[in-house]
């Protein structure tokens, strides 16, 4: 290591000040930490720390307010979009975002999610999809892939018996209340940079009061999937991405036709 290089004028990247110094409660290699950091970087770059209110979910990221140095409110399980609606309606000038996992947004909170999107609330919704209930020990979630093994589907998800995975992002893209809907990932530097651009776009659009901006981040759950972090990222590329393809689904209120 070159000691002379370590000077403030040579600094090109450091953790944003909007992340607190608390050690993240996530497992090693979990995408939640990266997702937290890029949201905070966007807020830092836009200079809207005092004008942003985040809604924390129930799930692994239940302690998100401990790590994000902005105003936050904890919601009941699945009710983050409902709470975000209330906050945004009471403070129309603030930037309001909800941060939820797939167990929170796509299972217990499906009704709140769909109705908030259908009403076209002017909020940003961040959805971390790892296809499993990570916090409770890796049980099958609505987004679990067909034939994927979890604690409650030890022989793989049988779609005849257990139903099909829910493509929440495609579902809500059909609703007229959503304006910008995209699916991204945070496992590689290029993906992280794309996701950051998408989050920045969503926050900028939320100021224009055009409707819900919804960002799904396909993430890993190496503890729940019983893999090492890098193996989990490769498994995610091979199995999750064919089912949850990355890219914009709805831009400027128009569905992208492929």
């Amino acid at each position, binding site marked *: *290591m070159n000691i002379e290089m370590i000077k403030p004028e040579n600094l090109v*990247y*450091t953790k944003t000040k909007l992340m607190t110094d608390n050690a993240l409660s996530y497992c090693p290699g979990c995408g939640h*930490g*990266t997702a937290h950091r890029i949201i905070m970087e966007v807020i830092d770059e836009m200079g809207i720390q005092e004008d942003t209110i985040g809604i924390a979910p129930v799930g692994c990221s239940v302690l998100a307010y401990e790590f994000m140095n902005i105003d936050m409110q904890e919601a009941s399980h699945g009710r983050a979009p409902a709470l975000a609606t209330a906050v945004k309606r009471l403070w129309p000038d603030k930037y309001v975002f909800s941060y939820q996992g797939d167990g929170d947004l796509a299972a217990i909170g499906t009704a709140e999610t769909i109705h908030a999107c259908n009403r076209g609330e002017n909020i940003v919704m961040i959805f971390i999809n790892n296809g499993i209930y990570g916090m409770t020990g890796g049980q099958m979630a609505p987004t679990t892939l067909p034939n994927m093994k979890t604690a409650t589907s030890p022989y793989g998800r049988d779609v005849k018996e257990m139903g099909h995975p829910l493509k929440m992002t495609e579902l809500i893209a059909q609703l007229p209340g959503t304006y910008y809907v995209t699916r991204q990932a945070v496992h590689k530097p290029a993906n992280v940079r794309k996701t950051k651009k998408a989050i920045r776009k969503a926050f900028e659009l939320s100021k224009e009061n055009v409707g819900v901006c919804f960002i799904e981040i396909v993430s890993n759950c190496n503890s729940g999937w019983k893999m090492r972090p890098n193996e989990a990222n490769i498994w995610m590329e091979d199995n999750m991405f064919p089912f949850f393809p990355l890219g914009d689904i709805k831009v400027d209120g128009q569905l992208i036709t492929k």
Partner: protein
Amino acid sequence: MAKVKGTIVVDTETCKGCEVCIPVCPTNVIAMSAKVNSKGYNYMNLVGEDCTGCTNCAVVCPDGVITVYRVKV
């Protein structure tokens, strides 16, 4: 071609040793330390002179433990 040299500073106490930074390094100068931090995780460190300060490792680090410095030489 203008050359750049970089270096990284690692917060070894917060590193959880997930190794996500290792495959994204274009010059393969990151490796896991044989030592562990107070939580028992092997932490990552810089092992070569070829770091270009590309920030790839810092961008993917879930725990944000990496600070990157870069100079033109």
